[in-house]
């Protein structure tokens, strides 16, 4: 018991340190400008906040549309129990991306301009619209949880009747902007290193998002099963892992095709920084996860699945950072490493996300009601085996 308490205070302390530093960096950013708070420059106009907070943030939130599509479009009922938490993760993810943009944009008060000032030719314009619309869709998909808590029957019914159109819109919007984040780089063929530049960029970005969405759902289920002491839906998660594996296999084929088509052999087999980073990304993000996730033993073990999916996520992050930072270094002949205040803002935003998730998951019906009902009320937290829940139905 003592160890548990110590652990809690340790993470609590980390959280508060991040918050304090984050507030300092926030003040610096908004009183002294981007120049003082970041290592960005005319040579490196996009840094950690775009590379991690936006590119990774949007990708990692892909679980929302993948699971929603599985449940409602493909009618795979068994995923229904993890849908609410996937939706919540996605919704928070997008809100945090918008928060990150407020830090990163030079004139954040103009963030709404794409609504009335149009440039349909611009990929960024499309991303802006998709993110706006999809965040709205997620808010609506999330709202039943709130209505349920407040016992508002009518709005709950209205949203329910809109479910299918909402999910279809969500899937289309997600496909569009997940891939468009890759399209952003199509316009810099002479700047982005050949290892990463490819006309397949939009497809690669989309596929890796589809792969990493379920991975994030798995990680989030694993962590919350520990935090909220509930049984993990291992049979569902291990089937989800197949989605990740298949998406990564298609990714693998596309990337190999790129290597052949763009004649990348001399680049990837040279002993340069870029090629090392590429192999790291490719091994961690594609090869190792495929190897692990196609192994049914690993898929069936909680820890194994968690570790495998964690590796998928790390590889994904490496890939996005490579495209947005590593891949541009040789062209600009300048290095970029984020200033500590940039890192602290990023940690701050992530920490806020964790805190918000915890808070909402505690108060709203995010986790399957069957489990909740069976809790012994006197004990507060009680582990209820999913098997027990499913016994009845079998």
């Amino acid at each position: 018991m003592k160890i548990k308490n110590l652990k809690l205070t340790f993470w609590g302390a980390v959280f508060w340190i991040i918050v304090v530093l984050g507030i300092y960096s926030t003040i610096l950013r908004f009183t002294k400008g981007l120049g003082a708070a970041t290592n960005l420059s005319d040579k490196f106009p996009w840094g950690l906040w775009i590379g991690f907070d936006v590119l990774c943030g949007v990708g990692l939130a892909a679980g929302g549309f993948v699971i929603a599509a599985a449940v409602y479009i493909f009618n795979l009922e068994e995923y229904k129990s993890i849908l609410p938490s996937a939706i919540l993760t996605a919704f928070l993810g997008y809100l945090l991306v918008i928060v990150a943009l407020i830090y990163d944009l030079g004139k954040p008060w103009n963030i709404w301009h794409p609504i009335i000032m149009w440039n349909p030719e611009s990929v960024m314009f499309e991303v802006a619209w998709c993110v706006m619309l999809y965040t709205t869709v997620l808010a609506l998909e999330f709202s039943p949880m709130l209505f349920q808590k407040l016992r508002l029957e009518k709005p709950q019914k209205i949203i329910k009747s809109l479910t299918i159109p909402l999910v279809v819109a969500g899937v289309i919007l997600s496909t569009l902007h997940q891939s468009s984040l890759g399209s952003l780089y199509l316009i810099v063929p002479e700047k982005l290193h050949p290892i990463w530049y490819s006309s397949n960029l939009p497809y690669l970005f989309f596929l890796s998002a589809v792969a990493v969405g379920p991975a994030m759902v798995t990680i989030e289920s694993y962590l919350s099963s520990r935090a909220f002491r509930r049984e993990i839906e291992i049979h569902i998660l291990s089937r989800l892992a197949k989605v990740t594996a298949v998406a990564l296999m298609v990714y693998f084929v596309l990337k190999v095709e790129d290597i052949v088509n763009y004649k990348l052999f001399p680049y990837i087999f040279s002993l340069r920084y870029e090629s090392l980073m590429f192999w790291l990304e490719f091994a961690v993000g594609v090869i190792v996860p495929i190897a692990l996730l196609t192994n049914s033993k690993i898929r069936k073990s909680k820890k194994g699945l968690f570790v495998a999916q964690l590796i998928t996520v790390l590889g994904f992050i490496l890939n996005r950072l490579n495209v947005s930072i590593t891949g541009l270094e040789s062209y600009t002949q300048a290095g970029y490493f984020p200033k500590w205040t940039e890192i602290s803002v990023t940690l701050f935003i992530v920490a806020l996300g964790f805190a918000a998730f915890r808070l909402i998951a505690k108060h709203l019906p995010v986790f399957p009601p069957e489990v909740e009902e069976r809790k012994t009320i006197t004990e507060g937290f009680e582990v209820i085996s999913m098997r027990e829940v499913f016994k009845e139905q079998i």
Partner: protein
Amino acid sequence: MKYGILIDITKCIGCYACEEACAERWNNPVTETHELSAIQNTAVEDHDGTYVPRLCMHCEKPTCASVCPVGAFQKTKLGPVIYDPSKCLGCRYCIQACPFDIPKYQWDKLNPKVTKCDMCYERIKKGEIPACVEACPAEARIFGTKEELIEEAKRRIDENPETYYPHIFGLKEAGGTSILYLSDRPLNKLGFKVKLPEVPLSHFTEQIMSKIPNYIFWGGTLLFGIWWITKRRDEVQRLQKKLKEMEENNKKENEE
């Protein structure tokens, strides 16, 4: 009428008069760095004694205008590519995307703008010539309509084939630009990029952007279709199950 500037590198003497004129025109301080920056919209770079004036190329199909989500950049009818800070949200995609690395950012300001040469648009509208061109004592920069400038450049190359490298930079690069360069050697030896395509760079995103409306339509139809089929399949399966159960019940009853 589309105007432009012809820059003849062989004539530039590196007196920096253009830099000073430009700084005055923008109310910027005069610097010693001779590098494009947020306070310097033209710069005369020194490449081992060869002076290379740099400024925005005023592309015919500007990448900056193509990528800007709010259309803050605009190619005007007169030729200059101008920027409207009141639209800009500061995403800096223009800086990332410009193939000539021209736009700079006011990183230290709280209300930052993107900065670059605007070919002295206000002066051109009034029928005057750009400040830097007016200031140049060596006629290394001349102003005129693009046709005139191309004629003039061709004439110079024809008349002095031993002085000039026979290429007018800006005719085709990145889809063509309003600023043209003449030089005694290929410009990629003077700090310009080697790998510039001859099509405007927006070409690379157009291909994928033009697919979007189609995708929305077909994607939507397909998704609704799949939903309908899987839902129907589920219903049918459920009904079949029920039928079977009923049959079996009937059988049992009959047997009894």
